[in-house]
């Protein structure tokens, strides 16, 4: 089954492009290959999922590119075509000239309705190219005007037009110290609206990825391209073909559906975090060896202690022991040290993954009481290595990973809202104070739900 990617705004288009690059380069890579049959199977599954065939031979990404100004899309299209390995469909894009001015209301209330038909037409065309449609993967940032506002609108339209398909929104959390001054408003409005139409929100935080670039990848002058490439690598590690069941004979056909089934048991809980290890500069890879026990141990502690990367993990944090007093388990303090999970998914790629023991992830102490660990935890794997890493392990987690960032975000936005600063910029385009209050309420609800896990 195929996934149609919708790239929204500058961020969405820049990242989307890196994602297809990463996927393509992984498929053509020569490291850690297994049997010829295995590789072909991987190659075919990947192709079907993300690309359509063109007579000319170069695979065409199943993607729709949307932006309210032309520069990024034209750059993205031309760079992709020059790679020689893949390209975008020349007709699958839509742009305007004037941009959204970092204004969510402009993206949502003005551009959205105005360009709905054109954009949905493009999506429909891409959907029709698929033999079977698994669903939609949208990429956007929350901070700006197009990705956030228009993105929220488009997600709603997708939900209305394709009620049976899955929608996964990849959302970029902006740097804490500002890329856009009104980013907290835009983020609050985006998240609250997406929560209604999306199946799940997969989040990447710029601050986190930036630290990975600085401390793990040793990049001196970090550019957005570096950040985007790390993000693309992490996404690829989740979405490349994988076996989702023990003893499965072929690669899973329904990537989005599988993801939702394993991770989103309840519509109140849609925030997914992503961790991927190891992460290091390419030229260090040749000198490093990895072991599954080591990787799994680190990944588990990263989950429990809510560590954002493999360095600086707090090993003191432990899950609460069963039988411990009610008081300590349900602390009212929002800053719980232990990260409680609803559901987790671990993805292992590389040789000898059969030997990996995931028992520690099935510890009931990690999870809430609603699901048994058998249901709350899932393991996907393939012997086929990913993107030059002999072994790599990813964790997609529906847990309190994003609670603190979300709480901070809402706090800052509320602080600004109390002074009514910038509100006139939104009411100008039809988003009233009431709409803000609705959004705040919705998110406080989400925060509350995640807090009392």
């Amino acid at each position, binding site marked *: 089954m195929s996934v149609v990617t919708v790239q929204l705004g*500058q961020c969405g288009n820049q990242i989307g492009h890196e994602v297809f690059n990463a996927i393509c380069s992984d498929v053509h890579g020569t490291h850690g290959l297994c049997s010829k049959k295995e590789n072909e199977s991987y190659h075919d599954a990947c192709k079907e999922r993300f690309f359509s065939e063109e007579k000319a031979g170069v695979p065409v990404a199943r993607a729709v590119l949307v932006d309210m100004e032309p520069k990024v899309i034209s750059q993205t299209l031309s760079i992709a075509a020059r790679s020689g390995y893949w390209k975008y469909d020349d007709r699958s894009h839509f742009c305007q000239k*004037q941009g959204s001015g*970092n204004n969510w209301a402009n993206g949502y209330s003005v551009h959205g309705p105005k360009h709905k038909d054109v954009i949905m037409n493009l999506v429909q065309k891409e959907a029709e190219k698929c033999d079977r449609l698994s669903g939609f993967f949208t990429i956007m940032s929350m901070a700006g005007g197009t990705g956030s506002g228009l993105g929220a609108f488009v997600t709603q339209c997708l939900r209305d037009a394709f009620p049976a398909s899955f929608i996964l929104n990849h959302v970029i959390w902006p740097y804490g110290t500002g890329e856009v001054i009104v980013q907290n408003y835009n983020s609050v409005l985006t998240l609250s609206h997406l929560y209604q139409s999306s199946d799940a929100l997969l989040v990447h935080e710029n601050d986190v990825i930036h630290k990975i670039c600085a401390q793990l990848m040793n990049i001196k002058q970090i*550019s957005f391209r570096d950040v985007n490439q790390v993000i693309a690598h992490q996404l690829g590690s989740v979405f490349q073909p994988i076996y989702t069941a023990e003893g499965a004979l072929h690669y899973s056909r329904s990537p989005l559906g599988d993801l939702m089934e394993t991770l989103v048991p309840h519509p109140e809980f849609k925030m997914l975090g992503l961790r991927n290890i190891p992460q290091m500069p390419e030229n260090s890879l040749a000198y490093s060896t990895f072991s599954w026990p080591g990787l799994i141990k680190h990944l588990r502690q990263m989950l429990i202690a809510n560590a954002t990367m493999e360095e600086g993990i707090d090993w003191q944090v432990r899950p609460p022991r069963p039988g411990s007093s009610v008081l300590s388990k349900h602390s009212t303090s929002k800053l719980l040290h232990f990260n409680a999970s609803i559901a987790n998914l671990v993805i292992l790629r590389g040789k000898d993954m059969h030997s990996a023991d995931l028992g520690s992830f099935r510890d009931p102490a990690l999870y809430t009481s609603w699901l048994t660990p058998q249901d709350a935890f899932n393991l996907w794997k393939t012997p086929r290595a990913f993107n030059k890493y002999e072994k790599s392990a990813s964790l997609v987690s529906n847990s309190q990973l994003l609670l603190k960032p979300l709480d901070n975000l809402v*706090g800052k936005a509320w*602080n600004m809202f109390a002074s009514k600063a910038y509100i006139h910029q939104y009411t100008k385009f039809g988003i009233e104070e009431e709409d803000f209050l609705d959004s*705040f309420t919705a998110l406080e609800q989400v*925060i509350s739900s995640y807090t009392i896990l």
Partner: protein
Amino acid sequence: KGVYDEALSSFFRNVDTRSGGDGRDISKGKICSLKARALLIDMEEGVVNEILQGPLRDVFDSKQLITDVSGSGNNWAVGHKVYGCQYRENIVEKLRKTAEHCDCLQCFFIIHSMGGGTGSGLGTFVLNLLEDEFPEVYRFVTSVYPSGEDDVITSPYNSVLAMKELNDHADCVLPIENESLFDIVNKIHQMISSGKLGTIVKQNSLVTSSTGSTKTVQEKPFDAMNEQGKVTGFCAVKVVSARFEGSLNMDLNEISMNLVPFPRLHYLVSSLTPLYTLADVNVPSRRLDQMFSDAFSRDHQLIQADPKHSLYLACALLVRGNVQVSDLRRNIERLKPSLHFVSWNQEGWKTGLCSVPPVGHSHSLLALANNTCVKPTLMELKDRFMRLYKKKAHLHHYLHIDGMEQSCFSEALSSLSDLIEEYNELDATKGGPRIEPSRLKIAV
């Protein structure tokens, strides 16, 4: 000859001048003849004529000029009421024509001075007109404010009358003071002559306009600055991100969105670094960081103000050249502790990265801030106004113009006073205790 591309088309039309009349627009391909998307308006002919005889003569079409002979006599009322009325239709027609040639009209730039009669009076008349005729298009105004020793006696009247119009009808105003331009030019002169700069400095090159021409700094710095460099170069930097590519584009409408938290507080303090060209192309980090520090120093501001000791409502940084997001973040972290931000916008930074540097530089930084440091400028203006107004000096020159009444003056004065009061209220919050409003409570 170069290629006419997306970047050029923001500011210029590519016209096939072989055919007669208006000339057909050529949308792509080689540059035939560039025409600025501009209107030049002056009620006397001297300055406009000079432009039409200078190196930029081919860029301006004679059909884009509106001139008269006698000038406005340094009288806002003459500019606004008399000439406004007289030339309204003509201006609207020419504006419509220019607008028709645009695929997508995003904003108007108005460049004028506050102290005289035409720029101030007719200029603000045009501002009103733009709001009426093109309500959806942003109006950015670059205003040159008179200095204390201005030789035009009535400049305080003209400025305050114009201020009311700016308060009510502009989306964003960038005030510039001649005094600051003087200081900057002098500073550069000093640095050149004292040999303080370790590296080779190319003489006589200021940051210049988007056409890439370098103008020499003459003995009369006033002329040099007024005619080129500072104001136009600065305006160009401001819009450049809209024209060129980068990893984090910043557009004009984003400037207005991020820097104007309340409709009337739309006066932005601007600074541009570096001011001189260095021979080095690959500037090491330390110099890069110096560029950021300079942007916040008093010496680099385009008005006589010290933003560091006042309150920031918002700040935007637009960097051009080989600067990456990590450089930007490092400098923000470094400078933040020494700056005071308003309580509801503690991390209020808007950033933009454009990979194309300006001509002759390896990188540059434009800082735009909404800061209460404009208050002293406004207060001084009010004081100078009051000194004349209390004695009713020169009022008759204005009041005998049709449409002018005493109330025009009192309304303008109260508009300015209100604005100053808004800044006062904000300043009062500076350094005070931060009370975080309590969050919404959800029933569990």
